[in-house]
């Protein structure tokens, strides 16, 4: 703790901390003066771009699917793709990801297939989550991607605990935890970041500051210099990054990961971006913000920015672009058609996984339910035909 003393009463200025934003890439795809790009191979650079594009195509397609009534809900990451893809690209596959819900880019980067996205969104029998949660609540043990949970910020102390476990087990891995600037107001944020600091957990806390929590603008969420300034208060290393700059997101995450792993310490990363679309398909942002503001940010498109850079490297061109979009549109559409035809999980799954084994009480409830469905099969069309499957 600071040992210095003063003898005049003076309140410290609330704007004492002013944390700069780390940027590498300008919108035209050139680097800022003094900036140097991370050392990407062509393959890697292209793969990252593919994941950005996949995410964008997926979002576009699924918003439509929701409008058509094919799925009840969807939530897109338009405008924020670089923040999740760029950060996840700097991780090892062994690193654990705890996401909020707007990080489908990171999941795609890990290898989640179009089919897997579709099966989850259509709650069918192939969904890894067994059709139990709303669309976009993905999760995959194989890909080290923790299943999404709707209650905000609960994953923050969990990520600290997970990272502690990695350290205990002697793994060469960190945990990354994504959350919005809105979620950072929850008590669980304070709990998780402080615990990670005190208990020396190699956790990367990545705040996507996209300006809004549904309709609530960031300046009604907190005062002060964003979320980053809180990191210093917890005594942890901190960096603010241009979230629309994939290269900067990559670099910041890379050095944060190195630091976390080497020092068993958390790092706070604040990615400054903007949610270009609605909060979710249940939301309409025209009620609370201006077209002008949206337009200003649309000009900062992170996917386009990265594409400009890629093109300048000589690694990308219009033909590749067209082919890629066509391929993903086709892939997603055909998987969607297949996914919506697949039945929901069989009724037995209703009582499974509450515990490792269904209790007697649950078995009894299920058997009574089956009996009832047999009596009124028309009321339960999704399951009535497959009760003994």
């Amino acid at each position, binding site marked *: 703790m600071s040992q210095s003393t003063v003898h005049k009463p003076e309140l410290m200025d609330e704007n004492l901390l002013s944390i700069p934003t780390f940027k590498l890439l300008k919108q035209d795809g050139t680097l800022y003066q003094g900036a140097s790009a991370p050392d990407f191979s062509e393959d890697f650079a292209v793969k990252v771009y593919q994941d950005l594009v996949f995410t964008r195509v997926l979002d576009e397609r699924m918003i439509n699917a929701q409008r058509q009534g094919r799925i009840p809900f969807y939530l897109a990451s338009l405008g924020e793709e670089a923040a999740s893809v760029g950060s996840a690209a700097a991780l090892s596959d062994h690193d654990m990801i705890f996401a909020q819900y707007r990080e489908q880019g990171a999941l795609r980067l890990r290898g989640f297939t179009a089919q897997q996205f579709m099966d989850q969104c259509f709650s069918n029998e192939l969904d890894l989550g*067994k059709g*139990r949660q709303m669309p976009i609540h993905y999760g995959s043990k194989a890909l080290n991607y923790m299943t999404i949970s709707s209650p*905000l910020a609960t994953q923050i102390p969990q990520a600290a605990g997970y990272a502690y476990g990695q350290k205990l087990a002697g793994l060469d891995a960190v945990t990354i935890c994504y959350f919005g600037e809105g*979620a950072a107001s929850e008590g669980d944020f304070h709990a998780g970041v402080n615990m990670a600091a005190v208990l020396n957990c190699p956790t990367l806390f990545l705040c996507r500051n996209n300006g809004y929590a549904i309709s609530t603008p960031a300046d009604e969420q907190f005062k002060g210099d964003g979320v980053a300034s809180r990191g210093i208060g917890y005594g942890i290393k901190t960096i603010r990054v241009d979230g629309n700059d994939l290269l900067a997101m990559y670099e910041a995450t890379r050095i944060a990961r190195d630091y976390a792993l080497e020092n068993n310490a958390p790092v706070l990363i604040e990615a400054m971006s903007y949610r270009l679309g609605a909060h979710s398909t249940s939301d309409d942002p025209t*009620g609370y913000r201006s077209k002008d503001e949206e337009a200003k940010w649309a000009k900062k498109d992170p996917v386009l920015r990265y594409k400009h850079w890629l093109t300048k490297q000589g690694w990308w061109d219009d033909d590749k672009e067209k082919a890629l979009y066509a391929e993903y549109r086709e892939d997603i559409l055909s998987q969607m058609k297949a996914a919506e035809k697949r039945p929901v999980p069989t009724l037995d799954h*209703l009582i499974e996984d509450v515990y490792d084994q269904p209790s007697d*009480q649950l078995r009894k409830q299920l058997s009574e339910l089956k009996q*009832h469905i047999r*009596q009124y099969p028309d009321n339960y069309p999704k399951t009535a035909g497959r009760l003994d499957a």
Partner: protein
Amino acid sequence: MSQMNLLQAINNALDIAMEKDDKVVCFGEDVGFFGGVFRATSHLQEKYGRARCFNTPLVEQGIIGFANGLASQGHKPVAEIQFGDYIFPAFDQIVNETAKFRYRSGNEFDVGGLTIRTPYGGGIKGGHYHSQSPEAYFAHTPGLKIVVPRNPHQAKGLLLASIRDENPVIFFEPKRLYRASVGDVPEEDYELPIGKADVVREGSDITLLAWGAQMEIISDAAEKADKDGIDCEVIDLRSILPWDIETVVSSVQKTGRLLISHEAPLTNGFGAEIAATVQEEAFLSLESPIMRVCGLDVPYPLAHETEYMPDATKVYEAIKRSIHY
């Protein structure tokens, strides 16, 4: 009288409460300018200013903590929790603080002015975290009142009564009915009593008891049973704490049978308390066991929502089981 849906009735009640009493203050996530994600607080900021209708940061424990402090100062906060599923981060502030505020201080201080509004319940394809019915979690807590309206008319009268009640009230709004339930609602200010059940249909063969959105279901079941010549008495409990033991027990003493239905899981739902009390108070009148038709003991599911729900045919079959016991 005007036709209003349930949301409009709530908005109207808030409007009246704020207009008549400048101690009434509404806040919560997205409640201010935007008027709430369901628009229950639409136009209130415009009418009453930012100081009395505002957004809070995204922190439920803070919303209720702040509301407790404001209420202890003599204001009448109406705090919104965006979904009933997200009331749990505020559990400590509600159960350890709100509920015990008056008692622990020997009535030096109280938070009687507080009302917590929150949408609850399923049937909207919301899965685990946009469907729960958490009333029973609070029902074990002396010091709280818990109210659940079944339609727009009830919602307005009960909400006005809740805001003005001298005790903290949790007001659970059946979100499945927000737009689906439409009815005549008086334009003027009126209150309906907290703690009094409402007999919505008289009958002699069996008593059906529920609250909120589940009233529709048991009423449907009563219609079905009627065709079989079974005459159901249908009661809306309306208030979970305190609950109207007298009305329920007299009804069961008359009919000899009781069926309770709620969407929340069976085990330790509020149906348990009702059954436990009624078997004691009306032991000699009971002609068959008290039945509970409830959610299964699983987290609220998505793909199997229809199967999970205690629907009208399930209630109807249970009625028959009770009658033919």
